[in-house]
């Protein structure tokens, strides 16, 4: 205590900013590590439905995404407005899902395959027909863990 009190009456020195870069770098590394860049550009417009009984999706690296919705305005001229499936960066047909799941599984470690989840990001207005087709393909591909992507909220 006495050590600090001595200095009290003397004039204030400017605070050294030499450690400022260190602090900023620390923050920088934090954000660099946590950041996830958007990997796919969406060609379908998706507004996920709201739900209350939701769970967080863990282990993002083990999740594959299937987007279902009507094409965005720019693409409507060539693809129409009917709901479509998007895998990675392109529109896909239902038959391509098995292939997609197989390639996703190949990219992961063998031990991790049972923990892989497929997240279905479908638009509120999509019909169940297309979603059922997707689910059937997932069953055939033996990828049984799914997650209906929803937002938190009530109607």
């Amino acid at each position, binding site marked *: 205590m006495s050590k600090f009190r001595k200095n009290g009456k003397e004039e204030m020195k400017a605070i050294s*900013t030499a450690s*400022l870069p260190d602090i900023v770098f620390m923050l920088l590394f934090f954000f*660099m590590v946590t950041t996830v860049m958007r990997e796919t550009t969406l060609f379908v417009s998706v507004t996920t439905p709201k739900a209350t*009984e939701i769970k967080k999706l863990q282990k993002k690296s083990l999740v594959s995404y299937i987007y279902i919705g009507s094409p965005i305005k720019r693409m409507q001229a060539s693809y129409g407005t009917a709901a479509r499936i998007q895998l990675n960066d392109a529109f896909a047909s239902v038959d391509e899902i098995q292939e997609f799941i197989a390639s996703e599984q190949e990219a992961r470690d063998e031990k991790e395959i049972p923990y892989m989840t497929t997240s279905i990001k479908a638009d509120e207005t*999509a*019909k*169940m*027909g297309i979603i059922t087709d997707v689910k059937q393909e997932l069953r055939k591909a033996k990828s049984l863990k799914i997650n209906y992507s929803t937002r938190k909220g009530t109607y």
Partner: protein
Amino acid sequence: MASKRRGLPEINAGSMADIAFLLLIFFLVTTTMDQDTGIARKLPPMPEEEQEKPPEIKAKNIYVVLINSNNELLVEGEWAEISQLKDGAKKFINNNGVDPASSDSPAKAIISLQNDRGTEYVTYIRVQNELAAAYNELRNDASLNKFGQRFTDLNKQQQKEIKKMYPQKISEAEPKNIGGNE
């Protein structure tokens, strides 16, 4: 080495902070903290070629929920609103043989869900959500009674026990195409 020879002037590190700030702001802007959330479900495996006869289940142990292509509900043969579904399902699951026309026990109760190909996804999710809510509330009540804690605060062993009491059995039949307006 270098300093020994000539004593090179030190590089001014004053602008280091600026560079770091620039990078920091870039990552701050691009970062997305939002966690993906959703309703987790498990699909049944594809039936194998040689299939054993499925075990017979009494009709009273099945709670039938049908959704048509106009997003209307038929629960146990009666028209219903989605808002009524949760209480109806809870009553059915927790019947424990009181009402002879309803389920024998929570472990035997099965909810059967069938939708039309023309049903809107949002309705399907709302129904799934209500059914999940019914189970979650029952599990929560049971864990409060048994352990005096909320279900989500229990440890894994205790959660398993509660899950055994109230197994979530939602069976989905393949959809029909009656509405025809897929």
